């Protein structure tokens, strides 16, 4: 019987004690003009780069326990748990590819998006300086690294999506999306004769299976899939990525898509690709599907693949100004 490594995440008290936010720090949301998000966002990045969400860890452990004892798949998943424990304890990046940094900011009326963008960019630059993030922003043609994760001219990186809502609190989610898994994402235009996929749910299913087979282990399986049905080439991909923020195991509100998610998770895990493509039963940890509206002439299926190291987290600044993190 091989040793099963048990996840030993540090307690929330220990995480708090290492926080970059001064003890008792609170935002003043009654004065949004004076609000500075730099420190709370820096703290969010400190957590996401070194800690995986509980639901992801549980899915990895469940996968490990379903693999044959001592198999390569079992050992690989065990190593993933070891790595999770190590990074959390040391507060060091889980993976050397700390990813492209993508933010979703939901805020009440009155927040200056220009100011927030500046502060969030500053937080990313500081996180890079602290060696929590690798400089992952290079000029496309020359390959020259900007050194601080900033895209200096067009400000596309870090990517920040703003949305004003009618609630009093501010919610900031972040995803660290690795390049390896980004490269195996795929967009299909239905009907697709090559894989025999028509404009229906069966066709969508075929696209997803095809994408996972093409990805093999290259996106660092077991992966988590975000799938958007419809939209256009941009909004479809955008939605597919945002879907990965959803907690594994939460049911889809749409019963037909919930059934598709459950059935496909089971089916994809019979492909035999396994962790890192070594073979095994754990090829995906889960998938999230959402239906969008579309132009009558277009039918896209956009698939984002997230590696097993699904680094995501959310910071909430309550109406009282109290910060809370879900990691």
């Amino acid at each position, binding site marked *: 019987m091989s040793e099963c490594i048990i996840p030993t995440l540090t307690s929330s008290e220990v995480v708090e004690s290492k926080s970059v936010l001064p003890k008792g720090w609170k935002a003043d949301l009654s004065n949004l003009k004076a609000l500075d998000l730099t420190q709370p966002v820096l703290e969010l990045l400190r957590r996401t780069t070194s800690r995986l969400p509980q639901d992801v860890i549980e899915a990895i452990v469940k996968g490990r326990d379903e693999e044959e004892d001592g198999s390569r798949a079992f050992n690989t998943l065990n190593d993933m748990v070891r790595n999770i424990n190590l990074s959390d304890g040391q507060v060091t990046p889980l993976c*050397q590819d700390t990813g492209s940094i993508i933010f979703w900011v939901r805020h009440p009326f009155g927040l200056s998006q220009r100011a927030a963008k500046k502060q969030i960019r500053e937080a990313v630059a500081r996180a890079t300086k602290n060696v929590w993030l690798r400089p992952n922003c290079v000029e496309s043609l020359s390959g020259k690294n900007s050194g601080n994760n900033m895209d200096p001219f067009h400000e596309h990186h870090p990517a920040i999506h703003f949305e004003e809502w009618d609630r009093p609190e501010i919610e900031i989610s972040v995803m660290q999306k690795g*390049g390896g898994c980004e490269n195996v994402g795929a967009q299909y235009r239905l009907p697709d004769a090559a894989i025999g996929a028509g404009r229906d749910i069966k066709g969508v299913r075929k696209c997803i*299976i095809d994408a996972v087979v093409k990805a093999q282990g290259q996106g660092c399986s077991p992966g988590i899939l975000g799938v958007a049905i419809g939209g256009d080439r941009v909004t479809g991909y955008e939605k597919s990525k945002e879907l990965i923020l959803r907690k594994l195991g939460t049911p889809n509100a749409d019963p037909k898509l919930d059934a598709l998610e459950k059935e496909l998770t089971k089916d994809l895990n019979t492909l035999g690709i396994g962790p890192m493509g070594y073979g095994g039963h754990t090829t995906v940890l889960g998938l999230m599907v959402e239906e969008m509206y579309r132009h009558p002439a277009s039918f896209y299926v956009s698939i984002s693949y997230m590696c097993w190291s699904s680094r995501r987290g959310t910071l909430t600044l309550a109406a009282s100004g109290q910060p809370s993190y879900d990691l």
Partner: protein
Amino acid sequence: MIRLTTPITEDQIRQLKVGDEVLLNGRVVLSRDIGHKYMKEQKPEWLKPILENMVIYHCGPVVRKNEDGSWSFVAAGPTTSIREEPYQAEVIDTYKVRGVIGKGGMGKKTSEGLRKTGAVYLHATGGAGSLLAERVKRVVDVKMLEEFGSPEAFWIIEVEDFPLVVTMDSHGGSLHEIVAQQSQERAKTLMA
């Protein structure tokens, strides 16, 4: 478990088979996208003594510069190897490299190169950044840091018991090809 220490001879490499688990020791040279393009197109002479009978690692590490000017590896797992497919076979042959560490496996051209030169592809667990950084004992040197940036530079490191699996050997064997074929077969049934 097979223990190997660099530099490695062709004889040692020819004995390895797909599925063998290896603990690697000694010097390893990091290189990825820009480095491979550079090696194929410019074939720099200065790399010859550094790479002969050595192992290349597809990795763009997270590094920390210490106060005394030395470097430490903070996270150092493998990057996806298939991007080096257009370059790898030629690089292996030009520099007589004995092994390539990465993730995800490589294609037919590289497989043929491994067979011809006598080299293997060694798979490391992707995403295990801190676990693998722990096995990096020392950063010996770094080349082309200014020119390529830290994720792409030639880092020369010393590793201890670096855990790897041979997934492509020097006899044409490839675990990736087997898994790909089997999963494609299964997908046909699922898509029917």
